[in-house]
């Protein structure tokens, strides 16, 4: 059958297995190179291979410690299920990406980050241990103290060190399900970067950026900061039930949009309208956890907006010092080709001390592009600009980078490939992405 990631590009022919227990899962090891798949929310071919193992039947929660917030769960449990179960009891995810429809195993494999990366690090920081199915089908528990080497290669290792079977993570205490949001309009890139630096102490921050604005308004943005609201921050009628949320309507994209819907004009209009809406939004206010962390989750199957051919995401991080120049060069290249993106996100990263994870201190920019000739021609240019400015790429979003680009921008993967080879993992675990990138 044909499998793809969230971007629906590329589509790869292969076999999909869905074992129901650890024994059946272990029995698959060695039959062919495998890659585990959770919710299929990696954009490209990270969780797609000749033989792909769906972890959907491994979806049980195993233990929770109400003192220290440690949750033990199987890899197929989604972050959204964790929020549903534990937010009403006053616990939230320490780190969450922009969708709740990702699995625990996927969050570990990609070492995902959220709006609090600069203040609280990536997902891996809150992982206590991982039970991993290895090259011989054995289960190995790894942590910072036991099998530490394996643990550190697994965070951000894209599922290529084995299959995450279960893991222990730490949740954090919150007093409510609400976020105190502050919105700062920025008329250009410099103002946006200044806003990030001025509000560095905010727990959460990110910006939506208009990637089609040019000249004086290039990089105009709406910067959004947030803090978990305490009970005292809530209006009096909400204090008794601080975790209850008003129901949000759910919409769904009912069919694949034809390719012409997304054109330079419609994208430009959307971006301009979004910016104007940002200007009108009150500068501070309370926002529910859903709209704040997962605005796109309210629109099911939003990937269909990009039509049948699918879409790609470009996400890179540029280190401090070269970031402003690099971002300007990227935005100029996009505006020049008019290959605009509906959703472009800019975010400040803090320092990252893990071995393989994507983030580093600097700025990350994420942009979606429909799959077409114009975008496919633009992407290598964006790769080159990123490489020239000392940046690197997020493999959970990648669907088309060359092995050469990865080698040039991120030498850590060569060491990872060597570790895989020496540990007998390379012949057991492989994705379409790992084969393309030679890791």
């Amino acid at each position: 059958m044909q499998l793809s990631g969230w971007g629906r590009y590329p589509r790869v022919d292969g076999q999909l297995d869905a074992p129901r227990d650890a024994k059946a899962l272990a029995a698959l090891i060695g039959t062919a190179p495998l890659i585990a798949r959770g919710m299929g929310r990696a954009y490209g071919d990270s969780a797609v291979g000749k033989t792909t193992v769906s972890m959907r039947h491994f979806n049980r929660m195993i233990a929770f410690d109400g003192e220290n917030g440690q949750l033990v769960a199987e890899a197929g449990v989604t972050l959204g299920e964790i929020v549903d179960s534990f937010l009403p009891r006053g616990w939230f995810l320490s780190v969450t990406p922009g969708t709740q429809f990702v699995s625990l195993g996927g969050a570990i494999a990609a070492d995902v980050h959220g709006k609090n990366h600069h203040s609280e690090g990536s997902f891996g920081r809150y992982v206590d241990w991982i039970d991993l199915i290895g090259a011989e089908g054995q289960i190995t528990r790894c942590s910072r103290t036991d099998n530490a080497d394996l643990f550190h290669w697994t965070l951000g290792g894209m599922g290529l060190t084995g299959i995450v079977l279960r893991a222990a993570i730490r949740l954090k205490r919150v007093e409510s399900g609400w976020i105190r949001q502050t919105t700062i309009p920025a008329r250009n890139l410099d103002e946006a970067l200044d806003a990030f630096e001025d509000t560095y102490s905010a727990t959460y921050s990110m910006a939506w950026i208009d990637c089609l604005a040019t000249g004086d308004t290039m990089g105009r943005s709406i910067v959004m900061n947030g803090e978990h609201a305490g009970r005292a921050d809530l209006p009096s009628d909400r204090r008794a039930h601080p975790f209850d949320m008003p129901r949000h309507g759910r919409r769904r994209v009912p069919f694949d949009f034809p390719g012409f819907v997304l054109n330079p004009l419609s994208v430009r209009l959307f971006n301009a309208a979004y910016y104007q809406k940002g200007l009108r939004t009150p500068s501070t206010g309370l926002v529910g956890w859903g709209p704040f962390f997962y605005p796109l989750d309210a629109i099911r199957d939003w990937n269909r907006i990009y039509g049948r051919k699918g879409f790609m995401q470009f996400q890179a991080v540029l280190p401090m010092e070269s970031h402003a120049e690099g971002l300007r060069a990227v935005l100029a290249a996009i505006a020049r080709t008019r290959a605009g993106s509906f959703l472009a996100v800019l975010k400040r990263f803090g320092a990252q001390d893990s071995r393989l994870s994507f983030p580093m201190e600097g700025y990350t920019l994420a942009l979606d592009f429909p799959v077409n000739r114009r975008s496919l021609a633009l992407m290598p240019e964006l790769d080159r600009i990123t490489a020239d400015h000392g940046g690197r790429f997020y493999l959970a979003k990648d669907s088309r980078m060359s092995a050469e680009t990865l080698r040039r921008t991120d030498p850590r993967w060569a060491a990872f490939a060597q570790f895989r080879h020496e540990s007998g993992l390379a012949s057991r675990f492989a994705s379409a992405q790992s084969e393309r990138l030679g890791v």
Partner: protein
Amino acid sequence: MSASILILGARSDIARACAHRYAREGHAVQLAARDPETLEDDATDLRLRYGVGVTVHGFDVLETDGFAAFLDGLPVLPEVALCAIGVMGDQHESQVDPAAATVVLRSNFEGPALVLGLLAERFKARGRGTIIGISSVAGDRGRASNYVYGAAKAGFSAFLSGLRNRFAGTGVAVITVKPGFVATRMTEDLDLNPRLTATPDAVADAIWTAQTKRRDVIYVKKIWALIMFIIRALPERIFKKTRL
């Protein structure tokens, strides 16, 4: 005291989805199946997610002599009893091997009907309760491809219909569920039309809705009601020549 649900055949995908659905609504859950120790992981998961009480119980649908003792052993007589036991069997085997056919007939009809019948008596004594039987569209008309299974489900549907008739106007409700195709372990290797196939979660949602809206007989996907209406309406001299 919170409401509770007894789920017979708790290891099936539909049963598991129903356990989550009712636990989310605050029901305590009694999970019953053969080899109850294999239910412990699910029980822990339900307790953690929903903060409800969960107990596990050994139950063998072929051991009819043990039914009364099984019911006596439950911590509390539940508000809702759901039977999700189903054994498809192999039609060809059932045709030639009476022992194989007997297992299919007893597992889909005799056992489920008798245990729900006993529960109905206890619900009647208490004055209230809901019985939910998962039957099948296969019981709506016998077809060459699966008539042993279909006959058992037809018997089960008739039994539920009779119970419902007997208890109409009392506090005891009886719901017959005909799921149509469902993507479960039972159908994993079949190539099912996605438009006709429900997820276990959709079945659980439909059952919850049927209970809250006091429905009698439900098809999970609406299109199945139409399909089965047509299939039932076909004159026998035409139907007998079809290969459905």
